[in-house]
């Protein structure tokens, strides 16, 4: 089973994403903050990371940057979860090093499909 990391502070959202990913056959590990996410990512080397942009403490973009700057091979796909209202988030996410983004509201029926599309675009 492929291990994937979801960094999300909202437990409802985390739960919903986890449902969808597990259903698709991924092993889901999660982190509630950026710092925790980085730590887990370095330790676990997940297949990909789902990153909520709005995080307490260091936000999703900063977290992404730090992961990219770390010793982890830069190829690890990071998919940002952005807010519908926050127009600038999308560009900022790509700029910070995310491979793609998914907008809220999360549709659990289609989210995995979208994630896999993005990963396929990365060439993995």
């Amino acid at each position, binding site marked *: 089973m492929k291990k994937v990391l979801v960094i999300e502070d*909202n437990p409802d959202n985390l739960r919903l994403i986890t449902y969808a990913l597990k259903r698709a056959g991924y092993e889901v590990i999660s982190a509630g903050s950026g710092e925790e996410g980085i730590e887990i990512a370095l330790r676990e080397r997940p297949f990909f990371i789902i990153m909520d942009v709005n995080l307490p403490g260091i936000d999703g973009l900063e977290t992404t940057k730090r992961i990219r700057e770390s010793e982890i091979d830069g190829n690890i796909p990071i998919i940002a979860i952005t807010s*519908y209202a926050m127009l600038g988030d999308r560009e900022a996410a790509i700029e910070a090093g995310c491979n793609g983004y998914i907008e809220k*509201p999360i549709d659990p029926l289609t989210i995995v499909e979208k994630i896999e599309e993005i990963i396929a675009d990365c060439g993995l």
Partner: protein
Amino acid sequence: MKQRVLTLHSLLTRLIWLCVLPLVLLAIYLAGVHVHMLQTGFDNEASDRAYNLATALDNDLISRISALQALSASPLIDDPPRLKEFYNEAQGFRESFSGHIVFADTSMQMIFNTRVPFGDVLPKLPQPKGHAAAPYVLSTGKPSVGDMFFGPIAKEPLVAIVVPVIRNGKTKGLLLSIIETRQFQQRIDKLALPSEWRLALLDGKGDVMARRRGISSEGGQFDEISSKRFTAKLTASYWSVVLEIPVSVYRTPIMSATAAFIAAIFAITFVSILAGRLAGRRLTKSIMTLTKTPLTEPLYPPIAEIEEVRTLLNEAAEAQDAADKALRESEDKFRHVFESANVGKSITLPTGEINVNKAFADMLGYTRDELRNKRWQDLTPSDEIEAIQKILTPLLNGEKDSARFEKRYIDKNGSHIWADVSVAVQRDSDGKPLYFITTIVDITERKKAEESLKDRERQLSIIADNLPGLVSRMDRSHRYLFASKGYELVFGFEPEVIIGRTMAEVIGDEAFKRAEPYVKRVLAGEQVSFENPVNLPNGEIGYGLVTYVPDFAVDGKVQGFFTLGIDITERKKAEEELKMTNEELLAINKIITTTTTTTGVKEILEKVLDAALNITGIEGGTICMITPDETLHLAVHRETSDATILDLTTNEIIVGDCLCGECARDHKSLILKNREEVLKFSTREAIRGEDIRFHAAYPLLIGERCLGVLCVFTRTDKKPADRRLKLLETVTSQIAIAVDNAQMFEEISHHAATLEDKVKKRTAQLKESQTSLMNMVDDLSRKTEELRVANERLKELDRLKSMFIASMSHELRTPLNSIIGFSSILLDEWTGPLNDEQKQNLAIVLRSGKHLLALINDVIDVSKIEAGTIDINVKDFDLYDVIKETLSSFEKEIKDKVLELEVESIHQMMHTDRRRLIQCITNLVSNAIKFTEKGLVCVQARMIADFGLRISDSELAAKKSTIRNLQSAIEISVSDTGIGIKDEDIARLFQPFIRLESPLKAAVPGTGLGLYLTKKLVTEALKGDIMVESTFGKGSRFVMRMPVNIGSSSKGQG
């Protein structure tokens, strides 16, 4: 005819040739004779020799014939038995004649032959070719000698002598004597002949029987061409003797004789020439000594005749010498003069050839050699030749002996040299011209000087003629030496005519009188200037500013003077004009000063009258003012008689009466220029009694109102100029105004006191109302400020509201996301199977959640737009892709409702807010699907040329100005076959929170914000517009138009 001249030498040579020639001819003749004789000698000798030989042979033959005849007579022949005897007899004959004897019968059968023994059988006689003797003898009976034949027995060439044996007159047989030809050969060989000669014995047919060959006759044949031939016929036979001498041999004597002769001729000629030359030289020398005195004693003895001549000559020569010497001296003198003269000299032949001296050659830059063989015509400009020939003609004709003229020569450089030429003709005794002696003096410099002088004269004359004035030169007795053209114009005298006339004659006595003192001064050496009026030919008077400049001679004495006259008529006129204008201005000035500085009516009138008199220059005047009762009141007067004053003040004139009354009535100036006219108009005795010779009355008019009358008059003959009267008339209007003003001022002064009170009161009132106004203004501005503050607070509140909505909506959305997300999972039975009732209920939860989310999203957008915080996020994309993407999300819905979807789009790169465009298309398509039960939903996108149709004019103008700079625009329309919109509802369609009444209203979910938001987005974010057309019950069509490129994106964060 040309006389040929012979030298003595050639004469003598000819003479000698004449002497020698007959001798030579004689010698030729003698040589010819000699050669002829030589040849004749040759010929004779040759023919003699041939003849002698022929004769000798003839004799031999004849003797043999005779012997044979004698033998034939022997009777032994007739007796055949004795024939043997006859044979023996014949043998004897053979011995004596060394020739065998043959006897033959008539049939030519040999009977015997002494060559063979008697009795041998013998053949017939041979018949040789040519002349055969035997047959001949048989036929003729006469003896004959035959031609050569080859003997059949003897076997060698032979000849036969045949004699007939005649018995009783009949030929009984033939007796032949056979002779070998070698006998003839032996004989010829013995002959003594010159070595070159050739000799031959020929028989009748020409065959050679014997010959003597010479050196050159190897061929054996006789040659007619190269040899001379002599032939001698024999008489006893047909034979002949031929003698040939080769031509070379034959001609030898001629050649030798000719050679000797030529040598002799040469010798003679040489000797005679030598002699002739010697004689010629001798004679020449002797004759030469006649002309020259021999320096040394002559080598030869003198010739007597020549010596005599010499003596005579010497005498003549001495006389000649003396003459010659004299002549030579004269010639030398002439030559010397000619050669060394420093003026050009030329001896010119009538044909034109010239012989010039060095000075002339130098003058033209040639050497004398270069001018040899030249003609004067060669050195003369072609245009002058004819003229010069005309001058020379009388000299050639003998009409004149000399001429002097100026002409030009062409020098070596081609430049022209002016020359003064004197020509004298020299004639022979018959008076024919021999040559011209020409003296040529180079006057080019003088000519140049003359030219330049002329040029300067011309220049001066042009200057003088064209100066704007008169220039002349006078002598001491003031007569004109020169006058410029201007004189003709001013005085009517042409300059040529003026010369020599006196000043008084030209400028007129009157003008001269004025000028005379100045003339005296200038002749004393002073330069003077003065103005002098002149009567012009046209009758007018002109003014001249005349300057006289003394003309000093070299000795310092004044020999005359120059006059310079400048026409200052115009200036004079201008000056006078100026003066007059000045006076007029002064008068006007005075009047104006009066009217502006003076307020009292009376005072003004006084000053005005003075000014009027000043202008007109006459002494009398009055001003009468018209009172309201139409009478004329005498206000001021000058030089008016007491009687008149009394008359006018006691019994005032009414309008229409007398001079002033008339003027006041007619509002017209009345000018009477003499006493008669004055009397005609004046009605008052007092005035009539005065001797007024000029009277002018002017009305003082202000518009149609006449204030009074200004009169000026004089009792003298000095009448004012028309110009001044005109001026006065002009000034009267000014006077009228001044008077009127003065009258008004007096009136105003009168009212001033009461007015002041009134003003004070009014001012107080005004002040009061102003204070209340000020209070009102203060009030207003305070209220405005309050309004502004309130407005700002409202704005702030509005912003706060929008922000509140935005942030609240965000907070609302987060739980909604969970509701929607988890109900989706449940409904999809991720967490376990659901029964139908649960499913239906969950579906309601999901749908309601989604509706609420859409509502919140729209509210957020609307509030953002209204708060002005909407973000525009410009991207480049293909319109086609956007439409395709948007419509793909409706596939399920359309399928479910069994609708038809038509899409028609162009590929067009856009530069605009992609997300907002999708939102707008989505809203419209969503609406179309919602409100269409069956049929068609159609989405079309195309380029449009004209953007902004069907929007109001002002909007249109505003849009157009925005769009104009953009390259192009697109139109996206969404049409359906749905329920349509009522006409009255169309206006409310785009208002917020409006949901139209429709049968589907309950069934179709909606926020009431969709079209409002769409319109806001199209206009605010996409810079376009939106409109709708619809038929109720049939369908609607929404059309969005927007530019392809909206320019750069606006920055910001939502």
